[in-house]
């Protein structure tokens, strides 16, 4: 089955920019205008964060945006309603949903997949969904709805496990740049990091790779793109929206600052 993620990587093999936004942040209705602004200014993939009360893998910036989004009234029902016509506005760009398992479980995994597919979502990033549970419980369901899972790889992930993740993936591999939660990229040892990126690059994996966590500006984006097909920016983008009246304008400005 065709999927927009594969098409995007076929069309552009290098320097793909994936931008993460928190649904319902900075205002409840900002989700769709922000997606349009990101795509029109050059983002190649869009990752929509589904806010959760207890985002374990996220640093302070995304935590705060999640709390704000929940206070704004965001939930999965609202999000799917917002995304109803997104494919008329953004026909080609891959859209992924990222979030923690508990809200998805309460919504019901099958309902969730059906709604996501109906909205034109292409991939799912559920960081606390264990590989083994995915294989046994959800792989068939995801396939039925043509939703591609994306799994994380860290510097500590064993070679054997990376091969297994690669085999289960038909989208891209999410390379976590170093130890830490989202947004925490500054303290990482560049030599170690390069060795890790090069080790993964040399594995000749079948899926392309995007590097995330701690990527936040033109310099870090370009550096990441030397070791992978592209990179993911989240916290830095959310920060760029803070106290901005015109969020879509701030989004365009941010993407342009990374790409130009």
């Amino acid at each position, binding site marked *: 089955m065709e999927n927009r993620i594969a098409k995007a990587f076929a069309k552009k093999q290098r320097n793909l920019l994936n931008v993460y936004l928190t649904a319902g942040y900075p205002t409840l209705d900002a989700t769709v205008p922000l997606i349009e602004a990101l795509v029109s200014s050059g983002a190649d993939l869009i990752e929509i964060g589904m806010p959760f009360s207890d985002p374990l893998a996220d640093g302070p910036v995304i935590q705060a945006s999640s709390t704000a989004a929940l206070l704004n009234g965001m939930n999965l029902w609202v999000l799917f309603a917002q995304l109803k016509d997104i494919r008329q506005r953004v026909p080609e760009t891959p859209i992924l949903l990222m979030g923690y398992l508990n809200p998805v479980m309460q919504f019901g995994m099958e309902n969730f997949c059906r709604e996501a597919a109906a909205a034109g979502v292409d991939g799912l990033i559920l960081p606390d969904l264990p590989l083994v549970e995915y294989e046994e419980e959800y792989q068939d369901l995801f396939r039925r709805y043509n939703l591609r899972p994306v799994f994380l790889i860290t510097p*500590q992930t064993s070679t054997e496990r990376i091969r297994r993740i690669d085999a289960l993936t038909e989208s891209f591999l999410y390379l976590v740049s170093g130890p830490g939660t989202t947004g925490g990229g500054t303290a990482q040892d560049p030599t170690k990091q390069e060795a890790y990126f090069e080790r993964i690059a040399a594995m000749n994996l079948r899926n392309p790779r995007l590097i995330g966590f701690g990527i936040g500006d033109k310099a870090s984006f370009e550096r990441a793109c030397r070791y992978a097909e592209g990179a993911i920016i989240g916290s830095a983008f959310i920060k760029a929206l803070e106290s901005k009246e015109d969020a879509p304008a701030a989004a365009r400005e941010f993407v342009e600052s990374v790409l130009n």
Partner: protein
Amino acid sequence: MTYQPNARGYYGEFGGAYIPEMLYPNVEELQANYLQILADPDFQREYQKLLRDYVGRPTPLFEAKRLSAKYGTRIFLKREDLCHTGAHKVNNTVGQILMARRLGKTRIIAETGAGQHGVATATVCALMGMECIVYMGKIDMERQRPNVERMRLLGAEVRAAVSGSQTLKDATNEAIRDWISNPVDTHYIIGSVVGPHPYPDLVARLQSVISEEMRKQLNEELGRELPDYVVACVGGGSNAAGAFYHFLDEPSVKLIAVEAAGHGINSGHSAATSVLGKPGIIHGSRTLLMQDEHGQITEPYSLSAGLDYPGIGPLHAFLGTSGRARFISIEDEQALYSVAELSRLEGIIPALETAHALAALPQLGAGPEDIVVVNLSGRGDKDLATYLQFADKLNSYEF
């Protein structure tokens, strides 16, 4: 029916290891090694010696005669409050720090609610000369000030968790984030039977010394190993897991888990997870969890800082839903009454958490021939500020 987890850490439908990839290597390392380390004779020798000489085990099993007379049944108190550091928590931290050393870890992190687990962790870190960082909710730091100072005196760094409700759940989130950021040298000593597999089983096994001693002591005292009731309070559920452990497969022993109802189960200010919770995922475990209709975790409430956790350990979720354990909810007021009662009738000032277990006594339906063991999980020193705040009420009760 088995009450032991399967190889992937499931008790029935509860348990497992729902963790982001960043935690996988550490958790897998523990999964692969914990049973072997626990079974290792050298480990056992060191652990048992520390339990005896450092913790002060075995703790007494004390027949509370005046309390028994009042409730018309035979009540024994398992005196975990007499453990070094004042609660059962140290049974687990002694075992886990020995395990951490065997895994080559040099840095210890922990979460704490009431501060008892934080103190117990800081204590063993001082004993072993290891770096110790304890995450504690900002609100808990205020209401359990003496424990914060004790941890600092023991050389630990106490970091305030300022997200969410600023209590135990948030302290646990911060500890997990620390572990994500320090994946190589750090061991996370979880204080309760919560978290990803193998923690619920690991902590239950390290606390199981409580019920192991109960059986022996009952046999010595009464010529029978099995009581009719075992009563323990449940926040995450570590003292209850330890008190129940060696009775799980003895169907004649009624297991009573006592939760904090706060201001009342339906007041919106409660921590009665077995009643208010639905299956969900918290801190890497599938269990009963207090959450809203959208799966957002709700803020629990109890006057006691050790019981206001929105989940319960997966073992307890299984014991509750399978009917093996009976859950009772106790409100703040009832717990305060039991604080005064045990203080005045038996000369023992219990921790506020423990008082919830005592407050369940009238609801057991135990007869004069029945043997009831209450796990006296901790002493009340740490709660003196709260008890002072309610001094008029506590002193007004007549016994």
